[in-house]
């Protein structure tokens, strides 16, 4: 499977995701944001970081970069797109995913491992997970508080477009297990066609037992399935 990772000035998880992809046997290429064409890819990853120093709004400037037109074109023709953390913020700024990420409710940058629940395992990204499986994945963000209008929230629920929800280790989804104030504890969402996933947690940080755990592995093996 071929993947491309888009690199912006200020991206800082681009190499982590490249290492994770290569470990999972993806043939990966890095693509600079000023490029106007993409190598043939089955998966395009928009990585985490602080593209353009979070100027204006997180992801706003990167969302208008040269390569984005090509990403949008590929997304519309069914290519799989994964946006992690700042990548999720960028995808909302491009309009590929609806809603937005507000500043964390506690106004602090949060960097810790949290529990999330797989809400829908019948997708290209999650088919190797059990339904309602609880994962421990790292989050590291200042703007992760997912917000959208009521019509879209209804659509997310009705069409099973919520990918992950923050929960506690027993799987309870409530205010205490919500680290950043996200609507309905949402940690990740799909677009209508479910070929685009945006998520705040970092699965690429959880692919090695020695440095963390392997809870992120199945996201990549699902894609290979």
């Amino acid at each position, binding site marked *: 499977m071929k993947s491309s990772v888009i690199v912006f000035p200020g991206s800082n998880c681009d190499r982590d995701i490249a290492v994770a992809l290569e470990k999972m046997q993806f043939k990966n290429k890095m693509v600079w944001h000023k490029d106007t064409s993409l190598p043939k890819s089955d998966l395009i990853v928009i990585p985490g970081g602080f593209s353009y120093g979070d100027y*204006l709004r997180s992801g706003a400037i990167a969302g208008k970069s040269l390569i984005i037109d090509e990403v949008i074109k590929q997304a519309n023709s069914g290519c799989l797109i994964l946006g992690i953390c700042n990548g999720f913020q960028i995808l909302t700024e491009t309009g590929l995913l609806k809603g937005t990420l507000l*500043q964390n409710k506690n106004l602090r940058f949060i960097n810790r491992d949290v529990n999330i629940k797989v809400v829908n395992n019948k997708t290209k990204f999650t088919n190797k997970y059990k339904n309602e499986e609880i994962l421990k994945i790292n989050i590291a963000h200042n703007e992760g508080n997912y917000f959208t209008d009521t019509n879209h929230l209804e659509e997310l629920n009705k069409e099973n477009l919520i990918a992950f929800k923050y929960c506690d280790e027993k799987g309870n989804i409530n205010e205490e297990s919500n680290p950043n104030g996200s609507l309905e504890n949402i940690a990740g969402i799909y677009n209508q066609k479910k070929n685009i996933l945006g998520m705040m947690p970092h699965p690429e940080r959880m692919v090695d037992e020695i440095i963390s755990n392997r809870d992120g592995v199945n996201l990549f093996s699902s894609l290979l399935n």
Partner: protein
Amino acid sequence: MKFSVTVTLKKDVLDPQGKVVQNTLVNMGMNNLKNIRQGKHFEIEVDENNETVAQKKIDEMCKKLLVNLIIEDYKINKI
């Protein structure tokens, strides 16, 4: 021609920064304070003599980049 653009969070969107600033001012003894909403301010100069055309251009800038219409409102003023 110069314009100012003020961007604020919509009234039903929580503004935690505004709240913290408000609480701090209250703690400093500013007791008559009722509410604070924090926002952004842009000063934009355009090379255009026709005000209607210029306003339209600024409006386009707001909609395409400066403002996230899901959560923010904006006001354009000539200065």
